[in-house]
């Protein structure tokens, strides 16, 4: 688009007192031949906004507002999607944080303004992506248990069409095996209601059910997912907009618990076996079909145990309380012992604990040392913490192991891959064990035709859950959400609620994608990466590094971007050595030009220059906070916000150094196990890439100290001035960039 740039310099909030505004206002015309430059006491006022609107009416279509942070007055300075608005921060990051009427402060403001103008010049209004294919607004739900059926029904109630695929012949999932449920309000047992629910699903005109079916293949992306479903030997194709995986859980394998008697004594059963027995009609001793007068439930059988499942399976306390209730109902004289570590009945479920106590069940806090048999009955020996003594409970008819939940996606064996040459830990066949978290190893359910593996990547313990506390539905595959116990162990009440939320996210993904917009966390963003394929060298970095698996590959290793899968973080743009990936309003040349716009003083002026590439989500607001708190830092640093540190292309570092910039600092989010990067691994990738730069620098006889990566959280703003000043000291020590003035 042909640009007409207008520059608007605000004097409000102390900016006018801090800077020589007249001088600053001369810059756009002198350096960029921009003749529309206005100054106002406060552009955020109606009069100020009207000034800008008048210019827009007269042809200005790129508005550079040099005033406060873009974090404020976003609504005031919104002139429609077809206008480019660039906000130059002169308030928080200049006037409020640097010495007034100072040469260095003025130079900082000038550089900020230059960068803003250059950026506005390089930006184009985004045009939303629209594939040529027809878009589908249907949902696919994989798994027809409680969570899957709930998701399907709730989406259908909101007017969406749903395809439900269940591997068994009958809908219902695990609840088909259950006699009753314990759910809100946790006063008494309630019927599972699962058959009614299955009937409701089958009768719902918006839901198409495939039972005894599985998903053979999924290709495409949100609104363009093409499915192959096989059912009774025939293959059906369908197209959907988004996907919910609700494939549930499997009980922990009790065969791994021989120390608790499983497999050794017939009358040691799991809670699942107990449930089936109860559902069938009568709880008996499996050994001889005899009466159960005394039962003992061993809680955390495998769970909360580093040898088995280190996590808590969340439901087993309630399940045992429920099952003790069955026994009480069958035989009021029967006694149930519940041997527990901690009784975990959270929220209103505490009421059911009380009910089980009122029923006269006996609770023992302690541990099991041995399970054995004596004269046809079982005994459990252990320690009672609250009695402070060893115990041996004899005459038990049935021992029930409260085994925990394993996500259905978790492979039984630890996956192995071919070990790299000489890698330690490889077995005799040259294979090495790996964490099963990449999407390649999970048990097959979705069969995604994705470059980065056929299944959802998982967290520790195999749950494809979100790592984000604030955004619990975020998986690493766009438009694919998980619901219920596949996500984390949860009781049925929570699984139902969880499924409603997942349906919401799946619907939202469809709505946004239909409008050509990104989903979380850049929801509504209409830019998307475009690839200049003629220059691609098939290096595969973009296809490998995309945190969301959005880019496929053809046989020749050409990247095949799937824009509806894209989250617009720009990690591919940062990865590409050929710099062929660009967004309309964010690109490698754009940031390169901004760096080039910085005026670098001559060496003898003693004014070093540092470029700080900072995460716009966390580091940038932190810097604003430091400004709001009137903290101060070196005026020699020029801050450039980036979508994610993962989008930082190393050429920017080369650009900076070749321009005579003395140092570069990257400020990004915490990475590692508890990463905070909103794009999963952007900050980590930046760090890795940067470590490679250090070698290059040394080869160029440049000190690797000139480049630094620092993790910073949004709340760490009080540390920022220290971090920055510390880096400036390092730069002073290493001295001026020898390439200055070249």
């Amino acid at each position: 688009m042909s640009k007409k740039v207008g520059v608007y310099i605000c004097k409000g909030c102390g900016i006018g007192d801090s800077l020589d505004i007249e001088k600053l206002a001369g810059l756009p015309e002198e350096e960029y031949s921009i003749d529309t430059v206005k100054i106002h006491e406060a552009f955020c006022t109606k009069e100020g906004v009207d000034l800008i609107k008048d210019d827009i009416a007269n042809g200005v279509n790129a508005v550079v507002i040099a005033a406060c942070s873009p974090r404020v007055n976003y609504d005031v300075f919104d002139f429609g999607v077809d206008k480019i608005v660039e906000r130059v921060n002169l308030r928080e990051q200049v006037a409020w944080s640097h010495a007034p009427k100072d040469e260095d402060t003025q130079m900082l403001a000038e550089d900020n303004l230059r960068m803003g103008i250059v950026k506005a010049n390089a930006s184009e209004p985004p045009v939303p992506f629209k594939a040529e294919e027809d878009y589908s607004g249907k949902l696919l739900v994989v798994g027809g248990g409680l969570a899957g059926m709930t998701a399907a029904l709730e989406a259908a109630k909101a007017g969406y069409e749903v395809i439900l695929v269940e591997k068994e012949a009958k809908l219902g999932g695990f609840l088909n095996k259950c006699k009753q449920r314990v759910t809100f309000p946790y006063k008494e047992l309630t019927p599972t209601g699962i058959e009614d629910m299955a009937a409701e699903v089958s009768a719902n005109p918006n839901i198409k059910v495939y039972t005894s079916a599985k998903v053979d293949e999924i290709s495409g992306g949100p609104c363009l997912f093409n499915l192959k479903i096989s059912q009774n030997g025939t293959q059906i194709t369908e197209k959907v907009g988004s996907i919910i995986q609700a494939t549930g859980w499997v009980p922990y394998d009790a065969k791994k618990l021989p120390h608790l008697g499983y497999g050794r004594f017939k009358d040691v059963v799991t809670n699942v076996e107990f449930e089936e027995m109860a559902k069938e009609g009568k709880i008996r001793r499996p050994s001889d079909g005899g009466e159960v007068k005394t039962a003992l439930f061993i809680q955390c059988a495998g769970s909360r145990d580093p040898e088995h499942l280190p996590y808590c399976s969340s439901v087993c306390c309630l399940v045992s309380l429920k099952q003790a209730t069955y026994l009480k109902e069958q035989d009021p004289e029967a006694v149930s012992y519940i041997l527990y570590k901690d009784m975990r009945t959270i929220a209103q479920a505490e009421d059911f604990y009380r009910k089980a106590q009122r029923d006269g069940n006996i609770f023992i806090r302690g541990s099991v040392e041995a399970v054995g048999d004596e004269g046809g009955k079982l005994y459990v020996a252990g320690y009672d913490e609250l009695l402070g003594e060893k115990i041996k409970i004899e005459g038990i008819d049935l021992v029930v192991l409260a085994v925990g939940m394993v996500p259905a996606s978790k492979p039984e064996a630890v996956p192995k891959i071919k070990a790299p040459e000489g890698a330690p830990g490889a077995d005799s066949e040259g294979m090495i064990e790996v964490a099963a978290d990449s999407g390649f190893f999970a048990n097959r359910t979705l069969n995604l035709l994705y470059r980065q593996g056929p299944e959802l990547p998982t967290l520790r313990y195999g749950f494809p859950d979100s790592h984000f506390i604030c955004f619990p539905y975020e998986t690493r595959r766009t438009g694919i959400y998980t619901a219920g116990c596949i996500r984390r162990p949860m009781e049925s009440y929570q699984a139902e609620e969880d499924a409603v939320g997942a349906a919401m996210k799946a619907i939202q993904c469809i709505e946004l994608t239909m409008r050509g917009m990104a989903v979380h966390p850049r929801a509504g963003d209409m830019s998307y990466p475009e690839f200049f394929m003629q220059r691609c060298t098939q290096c595969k970095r973009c296809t490998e590094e995309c945190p969301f698996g959005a880019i496929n590959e053809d046989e020749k290793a050409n990247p095949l971007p799937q824009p509806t899968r894209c989250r617009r973080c720009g990690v591919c743009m940062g990865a590409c050595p050929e710099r062929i990936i660009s967004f309309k309003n964010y690109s490698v040349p754009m940031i390169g030009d901004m760096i080039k716009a910085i005026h670098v003083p001559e060496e003898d002026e003693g004014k070093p220059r540092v470029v700080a590439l900072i995460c716009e989500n966390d580091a940038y607001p932190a810097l604003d906070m430091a400004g709001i708190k009137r903290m101060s830092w070196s005026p020699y640093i020029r801050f450039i916000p980036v979508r994610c540190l993962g989008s930082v292309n190393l050429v920017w570092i080369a650009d900076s150094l070749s321009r005579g910039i003395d140092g570069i600092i990257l400020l990004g989010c915490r990475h590692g196990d508890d990463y905070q990067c909103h794009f999963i691994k952007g900050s980590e990738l930046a760090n890795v890439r940067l470590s490679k730069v250090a070698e290059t620098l040394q080869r160029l006889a440049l000190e690797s100290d000139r480049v630094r990566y620092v993790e910073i959280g949004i709340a760490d703003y009080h540390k920022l001035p220290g971090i920055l000043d510390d880096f400036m000291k390092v730069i002073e020590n290493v001295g001026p960039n020898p390439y200055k003035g070249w």
Partner: protein
Amino acid sequence: MGDGKITQTILVVGGGISGLTAALEAAEAGHEVIIVEKNPYLGGKVTQLYQYFPKLCPPNCGLEINFKRIRSNPRIRFFTMAQLAGVSGSPGDFEVQIKISPRYVNERCTCCGECAKVCETEIPNPFNFGLDKIKAAYLPHEFAFPMRYVIDPSIVGTEEGKRVAEACSYGAIDLGMKEETLTLKAGTIIWAAGWEPYEASKIEYYGFGVYPNVINNIMMERLASPVGPTGGKILRPSDKKEAKRVAFVQCAGSRDENHLAYCSSICCLASLKQANYLMETSPEAAATIFFIDIRAMDRLEDFYTMIKANDRIRFIKSKIAMITEDEATHDLLVEGENTQTGEQVRERFDLVVLATGMAPNKVPEWLLPYVGLDEYGFVINNGSNKGVFGAGCVRRPSDVATSVQDSTAAALKAIQTIVRR
């Protein structure tokens, strides 16, 4: 999507993490949303937390993303210092009254801070539970969204008030503002009014409100925050001495039929997390957690395992029966029974943190025809809701992830109400 022509607004009451989430999820799916928040800022309780468990990450990180989502979404409007004051009509066609308290600062505020410079009166800082003071012309906290000052009513009508108003060069201070009530139309309502810590002074034998060094867990969050009233040093209120020996008293009110019969779900993890805050303040600091059961559900167990491995954090299974103060030192004597050894516990601490539970904010009488409550006052979402749905901690005591999950679900329930007609 059915017809794509939805014009009915979703009203979300409460702008905490639950309300924000419900509003954003609905708005990003294409619906019009209005948020009503009683505080002068959005974000609710989580803005006051130092870190989230188990990642020990700052709440502002996720809030900033959510505020960014609001900024970039014209479908969301919000009112701060506002409360729902009345509802009439039926699902799909509610008429709601929204009462807005005067902020005395209008949208012209640029947040320059000149008003605070001339203001001399100080008030107990509500954001820090009165643990420090703030000027009567103030920004509620540095991350406040919207970023706009507030004038405390105490200086309205005074000479000082006039001086403060005159200090503003943008005409942003309007001391003549009055409470006003708006009437709006809404198709459905999400009640996400959140919770308050259980009023610990009701547990008389713990001395909260009597002994200065007995605090609740939410106050502890402010003490631990590097930008809180003590600059992140855990200083006890009586003498600003650094607290080295700290007791965490679990189930302070929760799981107690004399107070809250239910379990508040989050207090175990909150105390584990806060014990960790303490560990970071000094190598000599030591924490004792007095508990009945440690309820670290699902993968949160990992966090418990990590905290248990710290030998400066002790776990004693005991419900505390009595806290008394040594009048001379303001130290606290904590008494209980170590139920695992049978020994009586009588220990001295610098500071006691009561793990107070969650009490849901009360649903007004006039809303009850539209939504049911359980015996504890939590909102029930089932088939009987009449266009009004609960979201987050008004439904059950829950942590942030669960609240967000629940609020996402509530958004869909609300949408179903307005698309069906």
